[in-house]
Each structure stands twice: as structure tokens, then as C-alpha cells.
């Protein structure tokens, strides 16, 4: 369940970091191929990527899905805005939109 406190924490994280990824595992040790691939793409832009591990907190895992109305992990925020999951990051990487967003 998404408590007010958790909502506040998520809002702070996405406000204070250019890229935030809610993922399975950590950027150093991803626990799911989709999460790992997304981190790899994002890190290739040389911008700091803040990873939050949903496997460490069931509350976070469910809460982030409610926050975004998006049902799967990973979930990526750029410049404070929810972008989407692994597919959309790969697509925006290929079509140049990520370069635009991360300028």
C-alpha cells in the first residue's frame, strides 16, 4: 500500500536525482534481466543513476506500482517524470530521445 510517507519519499527521490530506477537488485548487482539492461543503457550516458531495490522492501515494490499506475518493474524516472519500463528505455535509446532528455 502506498502510504503518505512512502509517497513523500518517492517524490523526494525523483526530485533530487536526474535518473531514478526502481529495480530488482542494485545497479551493481541486478537481479532481473530487464532491470539490468535498463541500468546498462542509462549508465552509458555518463549520468548518475540512482537505483532503488524493490526486492529489499515489499512496501516499496507495491507502492511504486500504485504511484505510477504501472504494473511491472523496472520503472524509470528522468528529470522528475515517470518514463516507463525496460522497453521504452531501449526504444528511446535507439531513437535518440534519451540523448535529448539527458542533455
Amino acid at each position: 500500500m502506498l502510504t503518505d510517507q512512502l509517497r513523500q519519499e518517492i517524490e523526494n527521490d525523483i526530485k533530487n536525482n536526474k535518473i531514478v530506477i526502481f529495480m530488482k537488485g542494485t545497479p551493481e548487482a541486478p537481479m532481473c534481466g530487464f532491470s539490468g539492461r535498463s541500468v546498462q543503457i542509462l549508465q552509458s550516458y555518463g549520468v548518475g543513476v540512482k537505483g532503488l531495490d524493490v526486492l529489499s522492501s515489499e512496501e516499496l515494490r507495491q507502492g511504486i506500482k500504485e504511484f505510477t499506475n504501472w504494473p511491472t518493474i523496472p520503472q524509470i524516472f528522468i528529470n522528475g517524470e515517470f518514463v516507463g519500463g525496460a522497453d521504452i528505455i531501449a526504444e528511446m535509446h535507439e531513437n535518440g530521445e534519451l540523448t535529448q532528455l539527458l542533455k
Partner: protein
Amino acid sequence: MTTEEIKQRIETAIPDARAYVLDPMNDGEHLQAFVVSPAFEGIPVFKQQQMVMAAIKDIFQIVHALGLKTFTPAKWSEVKFQYGF
């Protein structure tokens, strides 16, 4: 949940949508969907995907992953051959 049921869910939720839902690994858990709709016109791709995912979020009780691609009709007719359609 069958690919046919998911297809119908998407087509009901998105105006004038055609959805193609595939089960490429034949495991019922890692699915791939292509969704084409004029409702996507002028909307960034990530927002298009958010429209679809919000409409079918409960299927992820069962489905582990859904590869998703969304297209306007014009874009689809341009690129569908790349995906084997």
C-alpha cells in the same frame, strides 16, 4: 489468461485499437504485444505505453513480463514488416 483475452482487454480500453498479443516463448508468462491506435496520434511513445499498461495492470498477477510496442496507424504501416507482420 490467454493472449486472446489480453488482446480483447487492450482493444476495449484503447479507442479503435488493434492489438496483437504473442506468446513467443510459449510459457504464458513472457508476452509481447503490438498495439495500433489512432488515439496515440500526437502523444509521446512513453505516454502511449502508460495508457496501455494502466488498462491491463491486473494481468501482471499472472503474466511476468509484457514486451510492449505502440504505434499510430501511419507508423505501423511503415514498420510492421520489421516485426514479421
